[in-house]
């Protein structure tokens, strides 16, 4: 089963952070407070879009053919993702300042 990383707190709806990391090879566990990297904080659909975009060498025309959508629709999707990335970066900066 492909488990998804939960991103939002089910209790207060704030963004979750990483509390511990575990080495599957030697069993070492590192505890701390780590923020998720921006690409991992994006929704699954956005992550898939970014992967497809990189695979098509950053060509929006190729992407529109691949997704069967018009060029401006794909460009608008990319613009929306850029805005979400900017917001996440802003949130991460704020989080680092506060912690």
């Amino acid at each position: 089963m492909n488990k998804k990383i939960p991103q939002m707190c089910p209790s207060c709806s704030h963004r979750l952070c990483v509390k511990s990391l575990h080495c599957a090879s030697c069993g070492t566990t590192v505890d701390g407070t780590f923020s998720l990297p921006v690409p991992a904080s994006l929704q699954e659909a956005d992550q898939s879009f970014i992967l497809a975009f990189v695979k098509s060498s950053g060509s929006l025309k190729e992407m529109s053919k691949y997704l069967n959508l018009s060029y401006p629709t794909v460009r608008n999707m990319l613009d929306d993702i850029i805005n979400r990335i900017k917001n996440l970066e802003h949130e991460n900066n704020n989080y680092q300042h506060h912690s």
Partner: protein
Amino acid sequence: MKTTITNIIRDKKGWYNPFVYVAGTHALWAGLLIIILTSLIGHASGVYFPGVLDGKIGWEGGFPMHLGLSLIAWLCMVVVFYPMALMLSPTKARLADIAGTQALARAPMLLSALAGFPRVLDKVIASIMYRFVDQIEAYAEVEVKDWADPGPISSWEIFLAVLITLIFILATVWMVALMFHAYRVSSNLKRTRAGVSFTIGLLIAQGLSTFIVFRWF
């Protein structure tokens, strides 16, 4: 192209926002083809489009005149909305997208052009006008009308005239919805910003097209 058409038909929103699937040069060629077809049918049915939102009946102009009016209506939208999109859009809007989607947005006018074929509406309007002026003449004891009585109108003709008027109104509403989504998708504007700028732009384009047509004739 086949996939695009299938997607538009399958998508419930495809009827008022096909631009998620088609834009740019594809939309431009399809739109221009529809404008030419609309002008041809309008030339045969007597329907013409002397403004962005105008569809009128009962004119026997030549095909080039019909085509010219439809092209003016389309170009006025492009001339107004392209600079508007460049000014307001967070990303650079493409001329091909604005021109193409706005051309395709005029597709419902094909219905209006077809609706003119029964040739009833102009007769009903002429008859109503004749009787109206007749009553004024009788009341004011003057004679102003110099045209022949178009004759009585049957209830079937009234029914057809109402039906044609409804088709004209519905086709115009549909076209405005298409124009709005064409602009929204091409410029990546959202919510209030898209709605307000579209309303202002539409009024300017309508005014501009009416002015050009008025000067042309």
